[in-house]
């Protein structure tokens, strides 16, 4: 209070000595209610987000529950070395990249095409209905989707195999065939996400200046011309940014879905780095090794994301942070 009463000058004079502390106290006093309000949020992030970051320490030691995080013997990069030399490393790295890479290849263009088609369709009611329906799968849980996959593909009474049998062929047990895993995983992912994924492109399309279309009509542009020379260039920045971000997150897999879908028969194509970290760390309680595998994955992730962000910044002057 004293600081406030005497005005600016004393604060200015004492700046070298305790000015910063003084103004800090002043700010704390002024914003005390704001501090109080955000306290639970800060505690949450400190404990549940930064806490585990501190826990990453165990990736560099040989953790045993009795000795605790700091007491367990330090073993440098031993956990990482074991992982890099194991037969899992290349297989799971390959599976991670292929699963996401193919997923991007097939899954990325579909929402764009769908948004463009919706935009071309002028009938309001039917268009609205199509949109509404196409968003539904996005809100259906992964468990239900995986459950439907199991049911539909069941070798005994599944829809798909019933049809296969109808034509006189042998039933296929899809869920234990490694060559089918990627197809099933990716196509179900597309089914879930394509409709809702189009929302962002539709928003981009709706922000294009309608005068451009009017002017081009006067100039005799056809529908195709408008699509090619107005709509597509209009949403290109959005496409580029989302594409780069997706490439940046190529190491991030929806591993909880894989956990539901895979089994030891399909590990060959289905096992990714995160599922392996889950099996070692959680199922087998090899905490240090599991944490090291997880840390490797999230570090590569972060590097890719920073790289992707650099590229978008250069291309479109848009940055995540």
């Amino acid at each position, binding site marked *: 209070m004293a600081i406030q009463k005497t005005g600016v000058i004393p604060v200015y004079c004492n700046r070298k000595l305790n000015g910063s502390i003084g103004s800090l106290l002043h*700010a704390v006093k002024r*914003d005390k*209610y*704001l501090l109080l*309000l*955000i306290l639970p*949020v*800060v505690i*949450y*992030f400190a404990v*549940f*987000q930064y*806490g*585990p*970051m*501190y*826990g*990453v320490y*165990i990736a560099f030691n040989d953790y045993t529950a009795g000795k605790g995080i700091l007491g367990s013997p330090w073993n440098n990069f031993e956990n990482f070395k074991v992982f890099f030399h194991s037969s899992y490393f290349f297989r799971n790295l390959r599976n991670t990249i292929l699963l996401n890479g193919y997923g991007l290849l097939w899954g990325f263009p579909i929402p764009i095409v769908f948004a463009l*088609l*919706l935009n071309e*369709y002028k009938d309001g009611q*039917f*268009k609205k209905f*199509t949109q*509404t*329906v*196409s968003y539904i799968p*996005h*809100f*259906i*849980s992964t*468990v*239900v989707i*995986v*459950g439907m996959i*199991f*049911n539909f593909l069941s070798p*005994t*009474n599944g*829809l798909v195999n*019933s049809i296969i*049998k*109808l034509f006189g062929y042998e039933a296929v047990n899809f869920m234990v065939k490694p060559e089918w895993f990627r197809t099933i995983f990716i196509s179900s992912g597309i089914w879930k996400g394509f*409709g809702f994924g189009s*929302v*962002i492109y539709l*928003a981009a399309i709706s922000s294009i200046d309608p005068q451009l279309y009017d002017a081009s009509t006067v100039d005799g542009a056809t*529908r195709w011309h408008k699509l090619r020379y107005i709509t597509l260039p209009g949403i290109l920045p959005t496409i580029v*940014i989302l594409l780069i971000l997706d490439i940046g997150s190529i190491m991030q897999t929806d591993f*909880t879905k894989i956990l*539901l879908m895979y089994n030891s028969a399909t590990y060959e194509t289905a096992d990714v780095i995160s599922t392996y*970290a*889950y099996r070692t*760390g*959680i199922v087998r309680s090899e905490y240090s090794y*599991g944490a090291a595998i*997880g840390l490797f994955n999230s570090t590569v992730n972060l590097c890719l994301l920073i790289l992707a962000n650099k590229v978008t910044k250069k291309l479109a002057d848009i940055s*995540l*942070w």
Partner: protein
Amino acid sequence: MKFKKSFGEKTTDIVIFLIMLFVITITLYPFIYVIGMSLNKNTLTSMDTIFIFPKDISLHSYKTLFSDPLLWKAYYNTIWYVAVGTVINVIMTMLGGYVLAQKRFFLRRKLNLFIIITMYFGGGLIPTFMLINKLGMYNTRWALIIPGAVSAFYIIIARTFIESNIPESLYESAKIEGANDIGILIKIVIPLSMPIIAVLSIYYGVGHWNSYFGAMIYLPDRNLHPLQMYLIDIIVKNSSRVLEDLGIGVERTLEMMQIKYAVIVVAILPVLLIYPFVQKHFVKGVLIGAVKE
């Protein structure tokens, strides 16, 4: 001047219409098929599974399912997780969003960074798991509530909304009237933020309804399991009392199949029923989020 549509334009319209029909079909077909199968009579033969509509309607698979007390328990648990979880999520998100939207707040930039960093880097699965265990939340309901009490991404969305919808001058005049920051939040910001609160509630709520991984790693006790875990036991793991109680033989596998379809219906029906009413909020959520992206 409207010209008559050329032949080419008309064909394009028809092609687009057909593609839309295809989209609607592939999206809705699985749902209708699942409902149809769950309603079939248990005299079903394996060839009947090809048809989308049931031959003879019967509720026997639902009767079997509803006789399992664990299903009711799971349903109750899920409602509990959704209700308690969402209330905590929304309160925490609004607290964060409101404070970080105050331009004059002296820690604004620092705390912003503090929160945003967690969107891009985290300790990972195993250190988090160990922390939750250490805090004594293992095998308690709180393991599904507290570790996900708030999401950094939604704080940013709430902040963006408050920044762009509530003018600075409103805070200033409230201050002159003698209101403090807590009063401003309750009396001014909350009432003006109802649209974003609706968006947040729905996103968090659906998230809780659909989540299962937390229960999978933290809750060995079946009595605490949410509906999604019950589903996993029946459909994915084939390990449920409901299935074991059925007889053995060919009819059994068909009956099992029907129960599996019925349990899917039980899990998605609430979502499908409220979906038409809340649909516009979902879209709004994406658009507010896109401003920041």
